[in-house]
């Protein structure tokens, strides 16, 4: 026979679970998306300031391509989850033909036309930082990728030692995403969407 105490415990658990569902499926994803977009906007603003300083023209293809890709990531940031990307891959496999890939090619060509080596290096760094933001968003939002990241992080820490935990973390994120996600395809989609 169930007594009042057991019933209250069950009700408490049910209410707490409902609260958890609201947090996990609504508030948490909203907050992560806001943070991602905020960081990408900040990076885009930094790139704008860099161009404004005169080191690269606003009409240079490398600047325009980089901004285009950032705009696409901001616009479709809500679709940057492991679950969504897998479904997108399935959609391309079964539902629609794969769109052509030319962003990376254009980017490589554009970056080669930058004469100043320092500027070229800085633009590549901007690109890497935007990819890092996307990787973080993908990995930290998926339990599957988090598990892979954890293993990668352990291996990274063994290799690099405790001296550089941040470097090991960044390397683990990059390794995790590069093995499981086609970034060229993602950038292509982002650039097309912008």
């Amino acid at each position: 026979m169930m007594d009042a105490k057991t019933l209250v415990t069950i009700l408490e658990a049910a209410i707490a679970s409902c609260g958890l569902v609201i947090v996990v499926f609504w508030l948490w994803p909203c907050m992560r998306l806001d943070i991602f977009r905020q960081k990408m906007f900040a990076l885009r603003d930094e790139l704008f300031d860099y161009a404004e300083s005169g080191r690269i023209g606003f009409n240079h293809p490398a600047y325009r391509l980089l901004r285009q890709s950032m705009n696409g990531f901001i616009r479709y940031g809500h679709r940057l989850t492991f679950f969504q990307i897998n479904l997108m891959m399935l959609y391309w496999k079964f539902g629609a033909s794969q769109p052509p890939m030319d962003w990376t090619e254009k980017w490589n060509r554009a970056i080669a036309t930058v004469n100043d080596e320092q500027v070229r290096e800085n633009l590549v760094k901007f690109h890497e930082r935007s990819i890092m933001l996307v990787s973080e968003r993908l990995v930290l939002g998926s339990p599957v990728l988090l598990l892979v990241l954890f293993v990668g992080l352990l291996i990274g820490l063994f290799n690099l030692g405790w001296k550089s935990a941040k470097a090991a973390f960044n390397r683990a994120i990059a390794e995790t995403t590069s093995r499981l996600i086609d970034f060229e395809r993602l950038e292509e989609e982002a650039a097309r969407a912008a």
Partner: protein
Amino acid sequence: MAERKKRKEDPKKARDGEAETKFSRWFWGHVFSLIRRHGNFIAGCVLFGYCFRQAATALQTFAGHRSLADLKFAFGLFSNVTWAFSINITLSGLSIGLYLRERGNHRRTRERLTARIKELEIKIDPNRTSSHLTSEGLTRRDDQ
């Protein structure tokens, strides 16, 4: 080459096969697109429903022994609520309330500043491109 030969041999069959492939691509495309768009919402609703069902079952089981009309029953239930749970719910509610309030303020600030930033940036870069979010910095309905 083989496919071309087959098409030459029986063009009607080949056309039917093509239509079938097109339909299956269209069908699966829509299935995956729907799951991608509404998967999160459906999973949330299912879990929410499950919790509600469990609570309802427990209540039904208990109601067989005690009458819901009994005033003591309601007070009895409240007296059994643990203080830890009460504090947890109060703090969680407050945190969520504060978060939602802050989020609203953030959106209003974004709305206020976006047009201004855009105007200033266009003066510097007339070909400035946009991320196509709403003025509050949210995803547009068409992009969901």
